[in-house]
């Protein structure tokens, strides 16, 4: 347990310090959201209607970009080999790393949502709905994306390949994240159904993600 806690603490520390890159994700999220009105036009009612979709897409892309570093940095300095060979089960270590990554890179995205909602003409209720769906939905993005990150690091390829592999897998999270936000804002469907499915997707990813990532690391690293 202490080993896992130490791993989480270390990963968060590295991510937040100089060269960590976790906060660049937030900056990217901000930039993408600011770009949207330039593409769509400064039409406030339209922006309010598209707001949840824009925020979810921005968060999806931002979390994808930061995922690239999840295992690569550790692979470069050799600490990934130590983790793989260590006494802690690799599945748990992977889950701990993903949790740390979500705390360092995912939570800032959620914290930035209210500000960005303001830019997109979302009212307080809509913004809190989007933030709430992101709170339960972004862990699924991190834990599914971790599989792609593990594959990419064993193949020494990242970037575009990671995006191509992970993006189709994140379609369900996107669908139910946006649907739950829309249901909270405009109805007529209840907020509960898509929201509980979103929670279920996160829970499934907690199970599948660490095992698949650990399998790929165990089989892939030499």
């Amino acid at each position, binding site marked *: 347990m202490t080993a896992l806690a130490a791993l989480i603490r270390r990963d968060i520390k590295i991510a937040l310090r100089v060269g960590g890159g976790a906060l660049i994700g937030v900056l990217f999220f901000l930039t993408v959201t600011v770009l949207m009105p330039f593409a769509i036009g400064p039409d406030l009612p339209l922006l309010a209607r598209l707001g949840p979709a824009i925020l979810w897409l921005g968060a999806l892309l931002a979390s994808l970009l930061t995922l690239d570093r999840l295992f690569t940095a550790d692979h470069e300095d050799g600490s990934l080999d130590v983790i793989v060979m260590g006494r802690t089960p690799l599945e748990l270590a992977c889950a701990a790393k993903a949790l740390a990554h979500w705390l360092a890179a995912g939570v800032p995205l959620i914290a930035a949502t209210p500000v960005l909602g303001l830019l997109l003409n979302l009212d307080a209720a809509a913004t809190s709905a989007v933030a709430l769906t992101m709170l339960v939905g972004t862990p699924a993005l991190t834990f599914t994306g971790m599989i792609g990150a593990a594959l990419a690091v064993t193949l020494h390829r990242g970037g575009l390949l990671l995006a191509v592999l992970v993006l*189709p*897998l994140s*379609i369900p999270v996107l*669908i139910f994240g946006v*649907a739950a936000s829309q249901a909270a804002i405009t109805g007529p469907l209840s907020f509960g159904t898509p929201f509980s499915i979103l929670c279920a997707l996160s829970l499934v990813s907690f199970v599948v993600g660490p095992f*698949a990532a650990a399998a*790929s690391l165990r089989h*892939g690293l030499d």
Partner: protein
Amino acid sequence: MTLIDLANPSKFLALTARALPWLAGATAILLLVGCYQAAMAPDDYQQGATVKIMFIHVPNAWLSMFVWGVMSVAALGTLVWRHPLADVAAKAAAPIGAAFTFLALVTGSLWGRPMWGTYWEWDARLTSVLVLFLMYLGLMALWRAVEDPSRAARAAAVLTLVGAINLPIIKFSVDWWNTLHQPSSVLRMGGPSLDKAFLIPLLVMAVGFSLLFMTLHLAAMRNEILRRRVRSLQMMQASQQAA
């Protein structure tokens, strides 16, 4: 003859060399018979002659999912049993599966134009097949990203199994998404269940296409084995020249 006996590539090559002509012949006969029956099938009272696209479209759509199943079994073979031919089977199946999926999309689109008045509709079924196609392409990109086949094999196996778990979830989400956005769908294929005049040619075509997949898959596996042999011979030659 068990699966273990096939672990020897030479035995596999010898066996498939004998089996392939028979398979190819059976495929050709079934597809010819199926095409003839399909051409003789009566026109649909609503859709006219365009209903005949179904005889190509439906088998392709079935196989697009079946091939992912074959690859998932092969992926288990790679990760669990370390069967030496499993990754060859998985690698050879991916482009064939992508081709079936692509054909299902194209024939569906050509069928949709006269029937629904549009080549593309964000219908739940179409969309989930499109996502399946994207996943095939991603898998092929993964195979092509790495030179060492055994390293790529294990990565592709993990992705194939994750895909096998996720594809039903994606299918379900897309269904849900579409009913939300488009409650009254013009694309519902309900109507009366299939008449015998259509069902028999369809089944013949389905078996024919499945045999076609087996033939192409075995031939592609043979090519992959031979390709790997050529590669290792070239490497040996290069190292001898260097020494």
